[in-house]
């Protein structure tokens, strides 16, 4: 009996990548995230949905301590990644962000060459021993960003000269180049056309085999297409969290139901 439970726990621990406990986020006096508890599984795509201003981005950014850059922002509660509290003073946010990559809503390539954009992360973390290894990482990352074929002949052209969709895929390539374990994506497709969106979604599905992916999206269809788990936020509360199929077909909370059917949002 005892043994059985131990094994069960161990498996559980393995599967859960991020675990948030009683998380509160404040912007000055604004209480933006209210008492959120959530366990995000490894090798899964988790979608955050909810009306504008409900705190999806805020919560996402607290997962890699990006909120540290906002002076008035304060995070309370525990966020554990692999069982370790990321807000522990011993944790270096720089190291954390190498492990938890992020793709932003608006494509934001560096005003440098395509090559340098992707090589920057591996370079500052010392992931490549020499130029050949770096070239390899860059190519591999650009391939995983589904953009290699489009840019392989102009790696020295500026990244800012690409189209919006290409830029976003370049940013995804840049994020995966440091081999993070978790990839946070804040509305990665909001600036993309349907074709580029499909490419990025395909990419997300591929990434799932190695990473835990968390994606914020305003598109219900996208959440349904790419995610296995869905979390619905409303006014700073995590209202409902569960299997994507269940959330979309048989939500438990009336607020979830009305949001999904288009009545709030």
């Amino acid at each position: 009996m005892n043994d059985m439970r131990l094994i069960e726990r161990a498996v559980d621990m393995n599967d859960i990548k991020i675990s948030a406990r009683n998380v509160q986020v404040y912007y000055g006096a604004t209480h933006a995230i209210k008492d959120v508890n959530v366990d995000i599984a490894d090798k899964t795509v988790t979608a955050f949905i909810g009306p504008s201003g409900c705190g999806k981005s805020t919560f996402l950014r607290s997962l890699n301590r990006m909120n540290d850059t906002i002076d008035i922002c304060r995070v309370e509660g525990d966020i554990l990644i692999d069982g370790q509290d990321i807000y522990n003073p011993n944790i270096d946010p720089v190291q954390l962000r190498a492990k938890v990559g992020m793709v932003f809503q608006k494509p934001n390539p560096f005003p440098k060459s395509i090559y340098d954009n992707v090589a920057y992360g591996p370079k500052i973390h010392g992931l490549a021993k020499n130029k050949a290894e770096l070239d390899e990482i860059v190519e591999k990352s650009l391939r995983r960003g589904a953009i290699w074929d489009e840019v392989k002949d102009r790696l020295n052209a500026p990244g800012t000269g690409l189209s919006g969709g290409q830029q976003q895929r370049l940013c995804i390539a840049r994020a995966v180049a440091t081999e993070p374990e978790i990839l946070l994506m804040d509305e990665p497709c909001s600036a993309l056309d349907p074709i580029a969106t499909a490419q990025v979604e395909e990419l997300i599905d591929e990434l799932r085999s190695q990473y835990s992916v968390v994606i914020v999206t305003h598109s219900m269809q996208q959440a349904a297409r790419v995610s296995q788990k869905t979390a619905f936020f409303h006014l700073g509360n995590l209202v409902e969290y569960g299997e994507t199929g269940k959330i979309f077909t048989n939500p438990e909370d009336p607020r979830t139901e009305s949001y999904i059917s288009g009545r709030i949002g």
Partner: protein
Amino acid sequence: MTDMTSGSLGKTNTDLIRAGLARRNRNQLFLQGFGMAAIAFAFLMLAILVGSLVLSGYKAFTQTHISVDVFIDPEEISVERLPRGGFEEVLQASLVSRFPDVTERAEQRSLRGIFSNGAQFLLRDMVVADNSLIGQTVRITVPVSDPYDQVNKGLIDRETPNENRRVKDNELAWFDALIAEGAISSPINWALLTNADSRFPELAGLKGALVGSFWALLICFLIAFPLGIGAAVYLEEFAPKNKISDLIEVNINNLAAVPSVVFGLLALAVFIGTFGMPRSAPIVGGMTLALMTMPTIIIATRAALKAVPPSIREAALGVGASKQQVVFGHVVPLAMPGILTGTIIGLAQALGETAPLLLIGMNAFITSAASSPFDSATALPTQIFIWADSPERGFVSRTSAAILVLLTFLITMNAVAIYLRSKFERKW
């Protein structure tokens, strides 16, 4: 309230809009006209300023010279006594032999007055450089003295009664004779740029001032640029935002508005008084100008840093760059064009600054260019100040010419700043 198409007087909304449109268009026309008039006025003032400077200054860009055959008399000049010798007498003799009917000693001496006072030194340098000239007759071309330069440029009215005129009738007659035989020429006055200051306007040049300004600006740049950028980067990127940083910010803005003469007094008391640094030296001038330029650079740098979009910082932080890597790897390089523009504009201001340099004594009379920032020197604006204060007629046009030289430097620097700004302007 009632319906979309009819207003209270039975007019439609379209009518109301049209009625208002005429007034709005009138307002716009008026504002545009006012703006254009303001610009036209500004340009007119600029044209008047530059025009009057050119009018009064262009004559200083040529200098009247006289060419004469000089017999370098071994009686007066001998190798043993060099560099001393009767160079003045030799020059005088050359003109006396040209005008044999001038026999009175006093008249002969005033004949010599056609030569610039510096002519004897030019001749001396020639002979010192080549001793074999002694005993020969050489043709030399040297500046004439200021009154004759004025005559040649038409600045002395020949109708003025003889007793009120700087150049008397007999002197005019000699000079006209020299003109008639082609001994008088007016080449471009390179001495204006290659000579240092002199008591004699025909010899005075801006070299000392240019060199002094160069040293002062160099010192100013070396101090203000790194310190200004360091302060701005710290304040903008690293300092916690609290009461103290607010206070510092307010004070930096105030510092930029402090009248420059105050910085001059400060420099006089601290650099020269307390630290005993040399007076009139570009090192002190540069340090004083650095005090004034630093707030400008800090403000420009902070604006340039602020203009770097947050998305770039987030991108770098997102892949795990440290704060310092974000700032020095991304933000500062992207802000560099703005920082350089601000710096150049600050340096241009410093170049034109006069009051603090007057206070630390950079308006001394110095006849050689400084060879290091520790030598005494003048600067362009203080040289203008000295010349504007000089009684000799020749300094009037030279003052304008010096202002034109200063303006040329300022315009060039500002043009470089504008070029940098437009070349590296980014569209995010």
